[in-house]
């Protein structure tokens, strides 16, 4: 077991956790504002793709990240417009958005890069890996914490930023109010739709970062449907963490760790089919501990008499 649990495992776990964590924070902000964002998966996929496109177009990693973020925010606006403005069923809009992401990215992959399935350029530079002075010299912990892409550190900082935002600021307080009782919030003159759009845009921003970390931080390439369910795992992390940034961070850590373990286990002459299954099985098992709202509660909310 020494071979399994070593420094590099935890190091890669921290790396794998980042896209899930960023997306899950996005999901948490949306759900705090009263929107169930099933489109996380698609938004992250967009992010991954546009980060590569940005890199290809500008040659700069930082402009690429910015490009990805801006593009994903635009797509998140589609989700916002349909579900907030037109009051379409957010779940169906989210599912459709995932279809759009899959279709559009594979189309653009062909149209822009003229390849099928995956795009890889050996000259393309990924996100730099920061060696943090002092910390990197700490025996075990240094090896885990140091040497990641800046987005990894940004994700960790954002956890605390959002924790502060939601529970210590007026704007965060109003966002919580909108999610808790939109009718009451509206009666107080709080701009409900504006806040919800804000939440959707923030989740777009975060998913853009998540995608960039996926395609520029972990590897430097884009493959079709490369998110492979991470967006949905992030959704579970959101639910498990009760949309509380610290809780979301904890549950994302678990899933990222499982991702890392699953990759590591491939080196142990186990069938890859089973090692690949691990993150999904663990997610499923973790769902046992999170009780969904009962259908009675949900139906009551959906059929409230005050129309």
């Amino acid at each position, binding site marked *: 077991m020494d071979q399994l649990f070593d420094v590099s495992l935890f190091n890669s776990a921290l790396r794998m956790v980042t896209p899930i964590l960023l997306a899950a924070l996005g999901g948490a902000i949306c759900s705090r504002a009263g929107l169930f964002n099933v489109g996380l998966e698609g938004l992250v996929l967009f992010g991954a793709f546009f980060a590569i496109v940005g890199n290809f177009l500008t040659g700069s990693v930082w402009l690429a990240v910015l490009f990805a973020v801006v593009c994903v925010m635009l797509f998140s606006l589609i989700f916002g417009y349909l579900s907030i403005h037109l009051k379409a069923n957010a779940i169906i809009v989210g599912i459709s958005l995932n279809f*759009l992401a899959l*279709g559009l990215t594979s*189309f653009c992959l062909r*149209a822009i890069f003229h390849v099928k399935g995956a795009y890889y350029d050996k000259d393309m530079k990924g996100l730099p890996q920061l060696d943090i002075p002092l910390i990197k010299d700490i025996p075990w912990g240094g090896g885990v914490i140091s040497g990641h892409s800046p987005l990894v550190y940004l994700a960790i900082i954002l956890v605390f930023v959002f924790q502060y935002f939601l529970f210590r600021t007026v704007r965060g307080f109003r966002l919580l109010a909108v999610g808790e009782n939109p009718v009451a919030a509206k009666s107080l003159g709080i701009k409900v739709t504006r806040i919800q759009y804000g939440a959707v845009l923030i989740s777009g921003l975060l998913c853009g970062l998540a995608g960039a970390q996926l395609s520029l931080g972990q590897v430097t390439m884009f493959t079709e449907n490369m998110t492979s369910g991470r967006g*949905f795992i992030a959704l579970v992390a959101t639910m498990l963490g009760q949309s509380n940034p610290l809780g979301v961070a904890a549950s994302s850590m678990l899933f990222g760790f499982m991702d890392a373990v699953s990759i590591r286990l491939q080196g142990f002459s186990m069938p890859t089919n089973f090692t690949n299954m691990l993150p999904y099985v663990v997610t499923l098992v973790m*769902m046992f501990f999170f009780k969904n709202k009962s259908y009675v509660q949900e*139906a009551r909310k959906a059929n409230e008499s005050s129309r």
Partner: protein
Amino acid sequence: MNISKLKNGIGALVQPVVAILLGLLIGAIAIAIVGGDISQTYAEMWKGAFGSFYFFTNTLSRATPIILVGLGTTLAFRAGFFNLGAEGQMILGGLCAAITALYLPGPGWVKMIAALISGIVAGGIWSAFAGWMDAKFRMNLLITTLLLNYIASLFAGYLVAYPLKDNTGSAAMAQTKMIDHSAWLPKLFHGMSLHAGFLIAVVGAVLLFLYMRFTVSGYEVRMLGSNPLFAAYGGVQRGKLMLYSMIASGGFAGLAGAVEVLGTQYRYLDGSLSTPGYAWSGIMATLLAGSHPLGTVASSLLLAALQTGGMGVERNTEVPLEIASVIQATLILFVSAKISYSFIKRKKARAQDGSVV
């Protein structure tokens, strides 16, 4: 009364037609961006889908699993359950059908029937598992069905890569042995790919339509999806109905897998059911048709035509076949805005009825 029915019918059609036009418009923009000739591309798409009897039957046979999956999803959505696990249910259905046809002794037609049934059962059980977890432990069905897709696909991949692997041929592919010719689903036309599975799908659609429309339990399913509290109040047993509708829904998906294996592939090949995206197309077809069984047939045909047409586009123009996915996705997105359309109608109607509050 009949006029209002007719109006409703036309109203229900306006939305998808507008969505299709918008989808084609976005597609045209995408074609223009990649420098293709719009009219030529769409002409090739039409030819690829319906250009000859061969292409036409090809489209129909591609639509077959999409219809079946779509019917299963339709039933689940109508009952109010977001079953997104069609892919896993289909894979297990196909795998079990292949295993049954391979290892069950007996004459060909017995193997075939048994294989179809085992496909239905496998899909149904896998789907019911998610339903059970929701009913018993309140685990979000939408997410569990999705996660179960990955597990089913990896598990099936393992089986055909190791214990059930076909070692007879020279190719080292993860696949089962080929099913005996006698257990294949018969072809409808000589030399064409279209097989009897298409008839099964169409009959299934008609039966589901009649069931939802005219039977008491179909009525109960619809009410359950519409307002579960109202259904409970009226004596509908949610738990039972949920389990049954999930079984049926997964059964349709499993049947789709079985039909595809017995009619087209003749073996279970890893990835052969998931790569063409049948399951997701089926879900899209359901969304497109607003969970109407017969509408699902129509929208499945549309999606299949886009896909086979896309292949035609790929063969004969510079535009990549993924153009079909773009059109499909925009279609769904526009259709999902439907609720807003009926929302506007509601406002108007309310003003007419004179209810104020």
